[in-house]
């Protein structure tokens, strides 16, 4: 086991965002957190990173485990004259490692000195992943952008993450609102809407009933992708 969460509760500004949440993640799993917008997925990732106050327990094994984080989006960064290489320097990543990681996410050398603001949303997401896997973490927390990246692009990103996870023996915790991602890649899924609606291997726990409960009317849209 690499992560154990027990009775997690997060309250932000008098509002309960998450409660009564317990789950565990095994080594080298692709653990998917599925839920509609506003379900508290990003908040969960931030609690796991201990970036916000919470009740209950979040235990990593070992406690000082190296965690890579790929945030949903970084709105301010596009506005800055920061090159890809300079962005990596903020994490003190050596040029050699940067080269290796950018290659792993399918970006060629010509991107190194490009201003980040000039990248497409898909390219920027790849840069964030390369940044996240720098310094060889054991776990990668990946927060899916809710908008701005086309579906075709998304599929290749997940395939790429799966490949990187295999090569580097990574455990991945992935946040998404896309059901297809769960069926294709998840070892275990946690359906989240403030509380855990379902939890376990996707084929077993993702019943129509649970999905209706999770997404409400929205689920009809998701069925079209099957």
């Amino acid at each position: 086991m690499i992560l154990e969460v027990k009775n997690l509760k997060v309250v932000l500004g008098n509002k309960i965002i998450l409660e009564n949440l317990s789950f565990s993640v095994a080594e080298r799993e692709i653990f998917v957190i599925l839920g509609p917008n506003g379900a508290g997925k990003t908040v969960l990732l931030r609690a796991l990173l201990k970036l916000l106050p919470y009740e209950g327990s979040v235990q990593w094994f070992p406690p000082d485990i190296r965690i890579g984080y790929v945030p949903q989006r970084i709105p301010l960064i596009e506005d800055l004259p920061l090159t890809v290489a300079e962005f990596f320097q903020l994490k003190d990543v050596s040029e050699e490692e940067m080269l290796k990681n950018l290659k792993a996410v399918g970006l060629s050398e010509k991107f190194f000195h490009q201003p980040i603001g000039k990248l497409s949303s898909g390219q920027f997401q790849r840069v964030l992943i390369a940044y996240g896997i720098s310094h060889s973490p054991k776990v990668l927390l990946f927060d899916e952008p809710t908008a701005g990246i086309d579906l075709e692009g998304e599929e290749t990103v997940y395939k790429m993450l799966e490949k990187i996870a295999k090569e580097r023996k990574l455990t991945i915790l992935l946040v998404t609102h896309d059901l297809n991602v769960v069926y294709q890649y998840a070892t275990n899924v946690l359906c989240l809407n403030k509380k855990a609606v379902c939890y376990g291997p996707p084929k077993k726990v993702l019943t129509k009933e649970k999905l209706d409960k999770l997404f409400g009317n929205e689920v009809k849209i998701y069925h079209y992708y099957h």
Partner: protein
Amino acid sequence: MELQTLFSLIVAFFVGGASAYLGSLMLTKRMALVGDALGHVALPGMGLALLFNINVFWGALIFLLLGIFLIWLIEMRTALPLETLVGIIFVVSLAIGFLIIPEPELIESLIGDISKVKILDVFLAISLSLIALYFIQKIYPNLLLANISKDLARSQNISIEKTNLIYLLTIAAIVATGIKIAGSLLIGTLLIVPAATAKNLAQSFKGYMKLSAFFGILGSFLGIIFSSLFNINPGPLIVLISSLFFLFSLFKKRI
């Protein structure tokens, strides 16, 4: 060249360069107004210094440190919007400044007069600018990351509180020194306008910081030279010349 003009140019080189360099970091956090506000926070301190007949630099510095500490505390301890609070601190300081500073000195506090700097000011400007530059260099990667994304910075175990405090103290030191050049009303110019100009032109962050310092120095130099030629106050001239550069940079950005 007259010795006085030489003094002014030396101060302009160090303070103009250092504040513009620091300003390039301020712009990454959309903190444009903080520099302005801090200039005003210094006013009551300058007034008291004038009353007790000591170098206004020290009065300004003490009040700036107080103001900085207040802003830091507010930012860390509450979720209140920084800009609003800074705006309030800004007008309160201005009002107190107007009440306690005698009228002839008031104008000088507001728009400064670099053409009157003394040898002590020159040493102060050089040493404080160098100290500020040293600290900016040291905290710049962490601060930039924290400005881009607090979550990313915290996930890399960066202490945002510590970095921010050093950063604000550096701003205080630069503003206290810069008040002599541009005055409290115009110090914001030295922090913000060269950086905004450089941002329009730069292709990398290193280039951006260097260009910003360059425009800070150039604007201050030209302001002083024109002011000695036409015998007008350099403070407003520095502002106008710097803003003119900014205007040109907008055209370059479009292309």
